[in-house]
């Protein structure tokens, strides 16, 4: 196996990883909230996409939009009604709250959808670039992931709401003094986080089997990527995701699949000690 394939594998999965993490990173960086529901949001997006594909024959690529919209509303409401009450409290409080909410969400998802693995069957074929094989559905997922991430970045940079979010992230009180409705910004940010998770779920439905049993795995990945890349920034999540994808690909190639996952955690721990802001991030919340 040549290094070309390793790199290709790493980048393809890395783009999906980036998408998994970007919503999580945003919420964490801006709201100071570790959203334990993130993995479940992704799966929810995945299930909605799957059922749309199964019953309504809608392609996942098209589903991304409505699924993202639905998740945005879900996220917005959850933030507005519940998390806003505790958003300035220590990390443990908010984490516990989202942990409790996740238990409720998981229970219902498990009952409604069951844990049987589902998969959207999209046989798009593959691309063969001189021995390096790129499965087309992964390429599409990667492309969409990059597109969404890029879109988010643009929104954050150029739109009013984006700039409001960045302002709140930099200095909450100053932003409030400038007339920004902080609670609304928080709700929108959380909604965006959920939206990205849902959109990611739609992509993931194409690439991985969807089942409630893996929500924790996705959440775990999001953690690692945020640290590696840097909190609260879109480029950070992108860099972190791609980096993790490559780390796992190379470690898996040189050693074993288990070492691949371990490598991710070890690097994360090392970075936490040496450069906690991550490869790209600025000084985030302490």
């Amino acid at each position, binding site marked *: *196996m040549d290094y070309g394939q390793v790199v290709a*594998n790493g980048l393809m999965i890395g783009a999906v990883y980036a998408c998994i993490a970007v919503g999580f990173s945003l919420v964490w960086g801006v709201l100071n909230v570790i959203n334990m529901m993130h993995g479940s949001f992704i799966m929810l997006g995945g299930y909605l996409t799957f059922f749309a594909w199964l019953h309504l024959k809608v392609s996942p690529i098209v589903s991304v939009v409505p699924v993202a919209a639905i998740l945005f509303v879900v996220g917005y409401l959850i933030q507005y009604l519940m998390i806003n009450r505790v958003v300035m409290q220590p990390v443990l409080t908010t984490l516990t709250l989202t942990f409790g909410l996740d238990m409720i969400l998981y229970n219902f998802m498990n009952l409604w959808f*069951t844990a049987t*693995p589902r998969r959207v069957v999209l046989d798009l074929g*593959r691309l063969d670039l001189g021995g390096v*094989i790129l499965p087309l559905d992964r390429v599409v997922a990667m492309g969409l992931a990059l597109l969404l991430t890029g879109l988010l970045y643009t929104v954050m940079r150029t739109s009013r709401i984006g700039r409001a979010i960045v302002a709140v992230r930099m200095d909450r009180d100053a932003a409030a003094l400038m007339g920004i409705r902080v609670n609304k910004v928080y709700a929108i940010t959380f909604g965006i986080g959920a939206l990205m998770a849902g959109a990611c779920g739609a992509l993931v439905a194409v690439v991985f*089997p969807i089942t409630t049993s893996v929500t924790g795995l996705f959440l775990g990945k999001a953690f690692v990527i945020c640290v590696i890349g840097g909190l609260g920034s879109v480029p950070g999540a992108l860099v972190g995701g791609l980096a993790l994808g490559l780390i796992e690909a190379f470690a898996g*190639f040189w050693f074993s*699949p288990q070492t691949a996952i371990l490598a991710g955690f070890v690097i994360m721990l090392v970075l936490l000690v040496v450069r906690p802001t991550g490869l790209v991030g600025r000084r985030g919340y302490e």
Partner: protein
Amino acid sequence: MNVKSIFGLAAALVCGALATGLAQAQTIKIGAPLALTGGLADEGKKQAIAYDMWLKRINAQGGINVGGKKMRVELVQYDYQTQEQRAQQLAEKLIVDDKVDFLLAPFGSGHTKVVAGVAERYGVPVMATSASSDVIFNQGYKFLFGTLAPNSGSVENLIAVVTKGIPSAKRIAILGREDVFPKAMATVMSDAAKKAGLEIISLEYYPVGALDLATPIAKIRSLKPDWIYITGYSKDLVLAKKQMADLNVKAPVVTMITGPVYREFIDSLGPLAEGVTSASWWHHSAQFKGDDPWGSTKAFYDEFVAREKSDPDYVHAAAAAALVALQKAIEKAGTIDKAKVRDALASLDIMTFYGPIKFSANGMNGGRDLPIIQVQGGKPVVLHPESIKQGTLKPVQ
């Protein structure tokens, strides 16, 4: 309250107590920890279905015959959440608080061991319905019995079928999940393959938390194996096969334990499932006939299909068979005394819809000719044993 009403109340209470007392004395309670949530939620519900099928049948005929008297059966169920601690706690709760007479083991292998440990101390017989690895029965527990035959028998048959059908398949790559059962299946395969003279070109394990298998699969591709053998749970195997297709990883023989056995594997993969082989512990086309609530494999199959609209797999059958074994042991012992039923189980030698049930010294069901199947035309086809053979091994395209 006047005297009459006090009498009435007292009488009612006494009658009620007697009735409950009588009712209790006439039911056999079996404790069933189920994985309704958590990592094994999908697998665990198969047990629930099988238990329910048996329960309805046995109570429809009045219950189990205990020394001439028929006793109805009651199943006490809890969700053990695929957590070891809950499993252990649950075992004690069922025995001590719910006062069950017998226990069924949870789906997870490690959790089975933990439950067996508790049951052993209390002397309560435990029926393991989905444990086929020797490692589960290696703690010397006398009250643990399992209806699945040991893993080694399956790989031996598999190797026999492959070496006969595609003799050019000499180089095998093994990828296993680092989890009790899948790992055991990988290890027995590597031992058996070595003995059969096959060359093991790769033996790797992926962790329980693996989200992506692209790298190990790409590694396998570069080694150009004749036979790819992968173990794991449904979602792992679905992912693996898909990634094999993505990365253009081909081999004449592709085995996934125990993918093709399960309906959801074939449904999820569609045409990608074509040609995948697996070992199984039972196949519904078998022609066993026995003295159990169904009487024959076909009867079990028919009822299952009518109820679930899909074919039963070996997990369903083994779960129901475990209850059948327990039932037969109780009938044989003529009592629900735990020690005597345990002895009856140890010396049981019967034929059922599931096949022969006879437990070895370590509590595992005796080896038998385990079926080998391959997905052909979108359906699992039996390649072995001869008696129920439906097709021959075809190389994967």
